[in-house]
Structure formats: C-alpha cells, structure tokens
C-alpha cells in the first residue's frame, strides 16, 4: 500500500514502508531491483509509486540481484541517481558487482534489510550479509529504528554524492524486527527532502556526456590499479567527516541529530556494551535496569561501520573498566565477530584501555532479550571486580 498522509509526525510505518517512502521523496532516476525477503516490501511499495506516477523513476525489473546491481552500476555510470534494496542471498549474489560499484566510485544508495545467510536456510535477522560485504568499499550505516532507517536513507544520498566521497552507501536495518514492525516516526516534508538531497550533478564525465567522452571500466594493469584503490581508500577516510557534516545539516531540516555513534549513559560508565541496530534498543533497557541496581552501565551504538571510526569509539571506551562487543554475525576466525575484532584493534592505539569480550548473539533471528543483555552486564561487573576475562569470545542466546 502506498503511503499518503497529511500529518508528518507520529505516522505509523514499517521499516520497509518508511524506506520506500524516503525513496519516493528522493525520486531517484533509476531503481533496479530483484525483491528478496525481508526487503521485498520496499520494492513492492516503491513499484506502486512508480505505477501511480508519484515518481519519475525508471524501474528496471531484472532477473537476479547480480543483474540488479549491474543495472544500477550502468545507470549510475550514465549519470543517474540510483537506488536499490536487497537482503541476504541477494546481497551475496551481488558480491562481485558491489566491488565494481565502489571501485567505479558510483554513489548508489542501497537499503540492506539484514538477514542471515544460508546454510541452514533462514529468512530472519542477523548481520552476516552486510558484514560479509564490509570490505567491498561501500559505506555502511546501521539503523536502530524505523525512524533511523528513514533518516539514514535520505542522508545516504548526500553522503554518497559528496565530491570528496563518491562511494556507494548501504543503509542497514534489521530484517523483520525493523523492516516489518510498525513504529511511530516523523516524516519530513517533500520539499525539505528535495531541498536536502538537491539535484544530482555528476562532477565527472558520465557515459552519456558526449561532450566529454570517457572510457569506463577499462583494464588497469599493475602500472595504474593501485592508484585507483589508493583514491578509494582516501574517499573512505574523508567520508567520516562528510557523514558528520551531513548529520549536522540533517538536524537543521529534521530536528534529529546524527553522528558516527550514539552514546547512551556513557558519561560516568564503568562497564559498557557496544552493539548495532535494533538490539541496541533492547540493550538500553538493560542499561537502565543496571543503573537502577546501582551499576554504572553504558552503551555505544555505532551508526557508521564503514568507514570505521576506530579513534572515536576508542576515545569513548578507553576509560571504561570492562566492555562487551556484541556481534550479530560471526566471521569464523574463532577470534570473534567483525565489530569485536575491529574495536579491540582500535583500542590498541590507547595506552589505557578496558578489558574486553566479544559475544555473538541472535543469529538467524534468535531472540535477544533484556535478560540476555543483563547477563552480559553481570559478566562485565565480574570482570571489572576481578580484572580477569574467562572467555574472550563466546556465543550467547544459544542453547548449551
């Protein structure tokens, strides 16, 4: 069902409806997609907007996700503003094209509705899909709520197209938990969204710019490949400040502020949890409960995983006594999930740093409740008191 509403605040939408609505307001030139659970309704609703003439978008219905990303790349190289959405196996099938989108510096915006990867087959939430794509050169923003998913999609366009960046952006939201749950959110007026994202003017020659012909996708042999990759690395480095600046500009339009991470009750915290997306909401309830019990607990929810703000996260954690990093994905290193290993590595820059543990949770949509978070905080308090870490890396929310 396409959304039309007069009241812009306290609108009840699912995560996917909110993403589709943001896409409608952005009115991209081209969308190419091959719907997959749980991202399906993003395209279902967006295709209604196309059918109703509510957008000017050329919707390309393709035969696979590999083709979807290929079509996005072609359209973006031709100078179009391009968006798409996918999940799980769909993202996995896009794999080689993800790297090409990033390497060709095409500012494509994609909603990644996080879902587990096979096998065993599973349609529910974890972060295995997007975490697997962490080295593909895409910027990654993680959303806790429907509101954040909506806001991140709008900001992603400006981040991706910024002349210092020109990288594709993946906006992640939790499959079913966020994508299919109705939450209240505030929508931004069409005119404001239009003004915020602005008109897309590629500052490089595009494929359709016959006045400035250019070859795209040419071979780069050992005499030139690494220079292109060095540029890509620099763009990712510069993206950090661009994301911060776009967040500030977005606050002026929406009243909601966005940075690299959200810090929750961290000012005097002694033990802290780091966790992404919707599970951060559950964990905040546990933080409040721990505070009631007299424990100085806090939480950090990174919003930006690529580029990885290791210094900012390290700065926020260096004075904490014990930290738990919770990953909704394993990287099968037997050492810990991706968020854990990167945060632990980032902390090496600091002389004073906390005891730290990594815990994998909630794979394949396994429930993660307040009691699970409380158990983690209880363990952190033991570590704080004894100074000893029994298990550096383990699973929780699993039947022993």
């Amino acid at each position, binding site marked *: 069902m396409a959304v039309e509403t007069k009241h812009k605040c306290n609108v009840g939408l699912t995560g996917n409806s909110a993403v589709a609505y943001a896409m409608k307001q952005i009115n991209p030139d081209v969308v190419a997609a091959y719907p997959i659970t749980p991202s399906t309704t993003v395209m279902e609703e967006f295709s209604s907007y196309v059918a109703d003439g509510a957008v000017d978008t050329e919707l390309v219905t393709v035969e696979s996700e590999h083709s979807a990303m290929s079509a996005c790349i072609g359209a973006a190289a031709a100078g179009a503003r391009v968006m798409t959405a996918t999940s799980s196996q769909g993202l996995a099938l896009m794999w080689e094209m993800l790297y090409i989108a990033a390497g060709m510096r095409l500012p494509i915006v994609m909603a990644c509705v996080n879902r587990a990867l096979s096998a065993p087959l599973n349609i529910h939430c974890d972060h295995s899909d997007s975490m697997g794509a962490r080295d593909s050169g895409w910027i990654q923003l993680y959303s806790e709520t429907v509101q954040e998913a909506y806001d991140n999609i709008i900001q992603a366009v400006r981040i991706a197209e910024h002349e210092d960046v*020109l990288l594709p952006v993946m906006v992640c939201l939790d499959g079913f938990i966020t994508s299919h749950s109705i939450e209240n959110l505030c929508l931004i007026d069409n005119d404001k969204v239009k003004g915020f994202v602005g008109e897309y003017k590629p500052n490089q020659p595009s494929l359709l710019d016959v006045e400035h012909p250019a070859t795209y996708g040419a071979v780069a042999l050992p005499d030139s490949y690494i*220079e292109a990759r060095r540029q890509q690395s620099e763009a990712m480095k510069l993206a950090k400040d661009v994301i911060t600046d776009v967040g500030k500009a977005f606050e002026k339009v929406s009243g909601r502020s966005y940075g690299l991470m959200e810090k929750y009750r961290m000012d005097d915290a002694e033990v802290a949890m780091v966790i992404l997306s919707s599970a951060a909401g559950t964990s905040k309830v546990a933080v409040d409960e721990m505070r009631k019990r007299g424990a100085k607990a806090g939480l950090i929810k990174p919003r930006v995983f690529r580029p990885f703000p290791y210094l900012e996260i390290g700065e926020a954690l260096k004075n904490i006594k014990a930290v738990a990093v919770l990953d909704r994905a394993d990287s099968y290193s037997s050492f810990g999930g991706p968020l854990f290993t990167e945060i632990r590595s980032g902390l090496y820059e600091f002389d004073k740093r906390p005891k730290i543990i990594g815990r994998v949770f909630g794979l394949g949509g396994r429930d993660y409740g307040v009691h699970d978070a409380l158990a983690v905080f209880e363990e952190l308090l033991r570590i704080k008191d004894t100074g000893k870490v029994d298990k550096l890396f383990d699973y929780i929310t699993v039947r022993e």
Partner: protein
Amino acid sequence: MKKGWKETPIRGIILEAGSAHGYSTGGWRKLQPTLDRAKCIDCMFCWVYCPDSAVIVENGKMVGFDLEHCKGCGICAMECPDKVKAITMVLEEEEKEAK
C-alpha cells in the same frame, strides 16, 4: 613520469581517446609475422582480422606490421587466403638472427 594517485582521474576512467596506443604489447610476442610482398594481393583480410590493429596499410597497400603492438597471435597468417599465403609466422629469435 606517470601521475601519482592524487592527480589520476578517479573511477579508473580514461579521458583520452586511443590511449591504448601508448601501451606496448609487442613484448608479449613469441612468433613474429613476416610478409612476402611479392605474394601479397592486398585483399586486406589481415587488416580486417588483426585484433590489435597492427597491420599497416598505406594507400590501399599492405606494407607491414606494427611490431610495437603485434602480439604474434597469427590470425593474419591464418586468414591470408590459401592460394596466397603471403604471411608466415616465424620464431622471434630466428627473425632477429636473420637480420
């Protein structure tokens, strides 16, 4: 001196037309085409089929090969009509020794 990464156009795009001409692929060659001008009928089959545009034609006459770009694939010798066979592939070293 080639440009550093800060000066190189991003996206790996090439803004200059025909830039592949500046890249020498002749060094890949093991077999070298040789032309027997007396047999050649200037049918231009070699010119059409050469994947590297390495057959040199002047005023409608086939005059030889661009050895900076010829990779020695031998398509020209194969496509040269059976009754003509004006192009022979010879080992690069032997050709050098012959000269």
